[in-house]
């Protein structure tokens, strides 16, 4: 099971992950990225590259399944305006044993951060916005996976 979804409406992490629990595996790992409650931030706005985004997320899942023995993997990513506290991204993997699911989940979110064509900007309480800068620490984490 390999599922990629871009959502323009609110996502429910548990609903995105439901199918993974039914694959007969013993391990289910997930990561949810939420809009952090940072000073003055009311929401983030996510822009993406339709078409390339889906292909990019699918190829991340292909890379993960080539590297680890997985029964399934899911990536769901929000676009548009997402309020503080709401989910932006959900990554989930299922495998027979835990090492594979745990590592594949970390791999998928680390690579997504540096490869998938999404851009976010922060909206502030005073009505201003600011593009988020890419972080060198994200590059470093992604490179750990070779």
């Amino acid at each position: 099971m390999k599922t990629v979804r871009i959502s323009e409406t609110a996502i429910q992490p548990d609903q995105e992950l439901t199918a993974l629990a039914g694959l007969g595996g013993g391990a289910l790992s997930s990561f949810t990225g939420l809009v952090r409650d940072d000073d003055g931030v009311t929401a983030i706005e996510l822009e993406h590259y339709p078409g390339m985004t889906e292909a990019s997320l699918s190829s991340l899942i292909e890379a993960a399944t080539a590297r680890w023995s997985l029964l399934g993997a899911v990536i769901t990513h929000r676009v548009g305006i997402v309020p503080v506290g709401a989910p932006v991204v959900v990554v989930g993997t299922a495998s027979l044993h835990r090492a594979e699911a745990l590592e594949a989940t970390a791999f998928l979110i680390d690579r997504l951060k540096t490869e998938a064509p999404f851009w976010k900007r922060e909206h502030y309480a005073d009505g201003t916005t600011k593009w988020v800068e890419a972080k060198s620490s994200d590059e470093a984490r992604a490179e750990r996976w070779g």
Partner: protein
Amino acid sequence: MKLVYFASVREAIGLSSEEFDVPQDACTVGDLVVRISARSEDHARALHDLPRLRFALDQNMATADTPLLGAQELAIFPPVTGG
């Protein structure tokens, strides 16, 4: 060729996409970006910091050195910040 812009690049140029006639002597993504920069002051400002830009050619990640080879779509954008 279709040019598509995202995020701060889109904002600085003031367009999300436009058509561009590829000159005969533009062989690589980098060659083309230099020509696009000359289009207007907004283009020049949006594209002046070449090392900070990222590119996709027909929706595959590319670099300034990637040959154009008749590609249909060039996307120009800042480093990605999803997740």
